[in-house]
């Protein structure tokens, strides 16, 4: 039996949530004061995900970095691998917002897209 402690991010209450886990199975969730807290805890212990935002090297433009993000959230444990791929990448200006810069980053099935223009 594993006990996981979380802070709910849905509102400034920041309820401290306690989740009892048995392997991958949730045994009990406590500490939440609204249904959103319970949903958050369930997701956060079974499949935590994050959107990664960063910059990518760009050549031939006015600036040599352009902002980017994973199009949608990726598994939290892939943040490191995604950052490595982003750091290694280099794109050519011009770049427009929404343009795919790295398809299927780090095998996540998610694209890294530009979030700013590079001219």
């Amino acid at each position, binding site marked *: 039996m594993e006990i996981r402690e979380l802070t709910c991010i849905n509102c400034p209450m920041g309820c401290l949530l306690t989740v009892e886990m048995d392997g991958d199975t949730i045994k009990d969730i406590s500490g939440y004061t609204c249904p959103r807290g319970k949903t958050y805890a369930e997701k956060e212990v079974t499949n935590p995900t994050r959107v990664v935002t960063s*910059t990518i090297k760009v050549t031939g433009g006015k600036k040599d*970095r352009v902002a980017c993000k994973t199009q949608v959230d990726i598994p939290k444990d892939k943040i490191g691998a995604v950052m490595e791929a982003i*750091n290694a990448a280099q794109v050519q200006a011009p770049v427009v917002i929404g343009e795919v810069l790295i398809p299927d980053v780090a095998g996540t099935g998610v694209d890294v897209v530009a979030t700013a223009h590079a001219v």
Partner: protein
Amino acid sequence: MYDIIILGAGVIGCAVARELSKYNAKVLVLEKNEDVCSGTSKANSGIVHSGYDAHNGTLKARFNLEGNRMMGDVCDELDVPFDRIGSLTICTDEKNIPNLEALKERGEKNGVEGLTILSREELLKVEPHIGDEVVAALYAPTAGVICPFKLTIAFAENAAVNGVEFRFDSEVKKVYCDHDLWHVVTNDEEYTAAAVVNAAGVYADVLHNMVSSKKLHITPRRGDYILLDRAVQGFVNHTIFQLPTKLGKGVLVTPTVHGNTIVGPTAVDMDDKECTATFADGIDSVIEKSALSVKNLPIRQVITSFAGLRAHEDGGDFILGEPDDAPGFFDCAGIESPGLTASPAIGVYIADLIRKKYSLSEKADFIAQRKDILNPSTLSLEERNELIKREPAYGNIICRCESVTEGEILDAIRRPVGARSLDGVKRRTRAGMGRCQAGFCSPKVMEILRRELSIDLTEVTKSGGSSTIVNARTKDGDTHE
């Protein structure tokens, strides 16, 4: 081989350099920091004292008076901001009024003109925020405020234009005399000269003691200050000193020549000649003591605090000239307050000693005038537009708090003894000296320095040495696993 080597590019070293540049001589200034005005000269009250404070007959009294009288002309010639706003020394106890009168008498003996004692009623008319306990004050109309950076920089620039060489990042390790020739060994070179001027501020004792058996001892005396935003301009109109009491010398509250308000300093003797850190108790005591002079000081408007070190020699007076056992070595030691005021006079005095000793002849083509970096806000709309048409950089505001344009920053970097760091630019143009304290403009000034000095952004510094601002590109190092 030089004729004269000046050790230290503070206000004294630069004043001496400028005076010596009037003569046919090969002059070198060595400075351990990356710029002029990097020690005591950059962190003080910026006051031109009237001269009543120094005891009768001291060098401090003599050079204070002489410096004060010269300052107007020097600042005209060198285009340095100086404003003779007058000072008030306040007294908060009827019982101490005789002390105020004694001070007036001392000042008069020193030769200070126009000293008068003002009653509380008279004071309130000129200083409405004066403290409730103030009963009277000694008014000295000849006192003023000056930009200590600009004065030092102006001396240096004018000296350089007239042929004086400057070497920075040159720390003097050893000074000795061999067969009437002075040798100066720095961290990276050895120089020789007929004469040496010791203007090394808090280190003047160290250098002096290398060459003379009559030892000096300088204590770095720390002074903490707070600086208030220009938004409070007009809160005080004079330099307000406090009459020294049993509790100490008190602090001053004064407008600066640029319209800020400065409060300080403390006086704490230190062991470390480099300790320009501020201390919480120092800042607290400055604020607390200022309440005697003025009430409701708008503390919320503090934009920065800083500390400087005065070079206090045990004897308490300036030490000027050659020690008996080291001819050709000219001390300017123990230069604490009123050193800034005295600087033009000390420059003339030391240069004159050297001129006489080495029979220097006057330079026929000496250029006495120096123009400061153009401040576009002094121009009319038409003049300003002509300037921008000619030099579009003057249309580009870099520092929004102080309204400093790219044109001014370029000038600061390109002129003689130009700026090479963010602080160098700041002292010359005021970019970064305002209320946001360089938050917005520093990336822009860094970029201009990178471009102008043809260096990498990772080599741009705040104040030379290891004070780099960024250390690597993103995406080039190790990433988080």
